[in-house]
């Protein structure tokens, strides 16, 4: 009996770098907490620690999650140079952090640089690496990063059939690939959504019956010199509508200074601007909005669950499996304006009545955690065979 109690729980190191993956992690951590054989510790880095992006680490702390380490790695400047250099700082610290926290498993998510670094370090330490949201297509350096993570990861959690097939084509052994759906939907479908009335009061949105347009547009790394210009086109298109507008500020990628500048130059006084929103408030916005405009992945992944039309601008999310709610547009204001008009039309809204989210049913976190718990950490898992 005593022996059994002494058995160490499998400790999962979770690498949290930005709001993006935090959406997947939250429901997974809750499932880990329920599991008798599993434990976790969060390594917080990058955007979560930056003042200008709302210091979302406070949100993690408020929820009472266990933070094992904090790595300030992001250099100011937001250029390609600082982005690349910031990763090296993370890599420098991570091996000792994983060692110190006695991690048995490294869980990464999505397609950001610090996630790749964590996968590289985990694989080199012979720790199994699990990758959430593997096999997706994203249109820039993020996409390359995602597929590079696949090569270092031992378990692939794909969000849909399309993505799972892509991982298999990369030569990964079938037993490693699991189509689990997208875990960031768990929270949303699980019900943590700020009600409309409370949300409008909190964000200062007038309850005047006008349509609500939410803008969330990030700079695309390859096109970062044009990020300001692209934001301008979007805002000029949005201005053509008699609507309430909420702008959710961009992430720490290269070009974000240009985007911030463009927003303040081209906003109207009634547009509300928020640098970071609590998850449930963002979900509330999606539940209350009439259209989501920009290139945030939430338009592709999460909006279909709210039957929310999404105008998807440019290349960032191109090539990903899209629900019926998505209308694609280029960076030209007229194109964006036409897409918004279509999204706001009664016919389009009606066509979304039976909109199904291709990214799953909101039960992914439990699937992921069960797979981690029942996969033995063995040579079979740790030594990868290439299937091509």
């Amino acid at each position, binding site marked *: 009996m005593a022996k059994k109690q002494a058995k160490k729980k499998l400790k999962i190191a979770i690498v949290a770098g930005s709001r993006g993956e935090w959406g997947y992690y939250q429901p997974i951590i809750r499932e880990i907490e329920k599991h008798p054989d599993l434990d976790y510790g969060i390594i917080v880095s990058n955007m979560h620690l930056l003042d200008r992006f709302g210091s979302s680490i406070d949100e993690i702390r408020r929820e009472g999650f266990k933070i094992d380490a904090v790595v300030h790695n992001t250099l100011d400047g937001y250029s390609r140079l600082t982005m690349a250099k910031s990763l090296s700082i993370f890599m420098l610290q991570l091996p000792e952090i994983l060692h110190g926290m006695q991690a048995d498993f490294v869980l990464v998510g999505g397609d950001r640089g610090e996630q790749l670094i964590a996968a590289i370090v985990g694989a080199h330490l012979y720790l199994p690496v699990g990758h959430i949201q593997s096999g997706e297509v994203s249109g820039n350096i993020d996409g390359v990063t995602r597929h590079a993570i696949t090569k270092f990861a031992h378990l692939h959690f794909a969000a849909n059939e399309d993505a799972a097939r892509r991982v298999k084509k990369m030569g990964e052994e079938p037993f490693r690939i699991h189509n689990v759906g997208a875990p960031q939907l768990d929270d949303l479908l699980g019900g943590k959504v700020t009600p409309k009335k409370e949300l409008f009061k909190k964000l200062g949105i007038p309850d005047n019956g006008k349509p609500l347009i939410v803008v969330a547009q990030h700079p695309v790394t390859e096109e970062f010199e044009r990020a300001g210009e692209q934001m301008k086109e979007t805002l000029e298109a949005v201005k053509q509508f008699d609507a309430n507008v909420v702008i959710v500020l961009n992430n720490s990628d290269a070009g974000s200074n240009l985007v911030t500048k463009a927003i303040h130059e081209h*906003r109207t*006084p009634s547009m509300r601007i928020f640098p970071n929103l609590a998850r449930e408030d963002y979900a509330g916005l999606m539940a209350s909005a009439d259209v989501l405009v920009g290139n945030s992945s939430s338009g592709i992944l999460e909006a279909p669950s709210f039957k929310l039309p999404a105008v998807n601008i440019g290349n960032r999310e191109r090539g990903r499996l899209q629900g019926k709610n998505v209308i694609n547009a280029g960076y030209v204001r007229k194109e964006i304006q036409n897409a918004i008009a279509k999204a706001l039309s009664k016919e389009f809204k009606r066509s979304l009545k039976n909109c199904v989210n291709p990214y799953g049913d909101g039960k992914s976190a439990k699937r992921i955690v069960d797979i981690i718990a029942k996969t033995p950490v063995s040579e079979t898992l740790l030594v990868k065979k290439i299937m091509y």
Partner: protein
Amino acid sequence: MKNKLSAYPNFFMSSDGTIADALTCITENKHGAVIVVDDRNIVYGIVADGDVRRAMLKGATMLTPIMKLVNTNSVVLPDTINKEAEAEKIFGDHVGFNLVPVVAADNTLVDIMIRNTSKA
């Protein structure tokens, strides 16, 4: 337009500034708040002394970038309307407001409406 702003040197500051810069302006202008603009004079918002106090209680320091606390949803007036009358109305409705930026169509700061506090 420029000469209007030069009359109010401590009522606006750069978005690259820190809490220390904001406190210097607020102390000098005696109106409890400062407007934050970028290098092209585009208005980003307002920081009031209460914003600074609340930020410091959460751990901000004199060197914290002002962009961390700027209220990007503050009231502004377009320069096309009767701004004096509008400003009086705003000051009447909101006891806590002492400054209202007046902006051109491209959101550049062109004038500042200031509550007359000399009688108080």
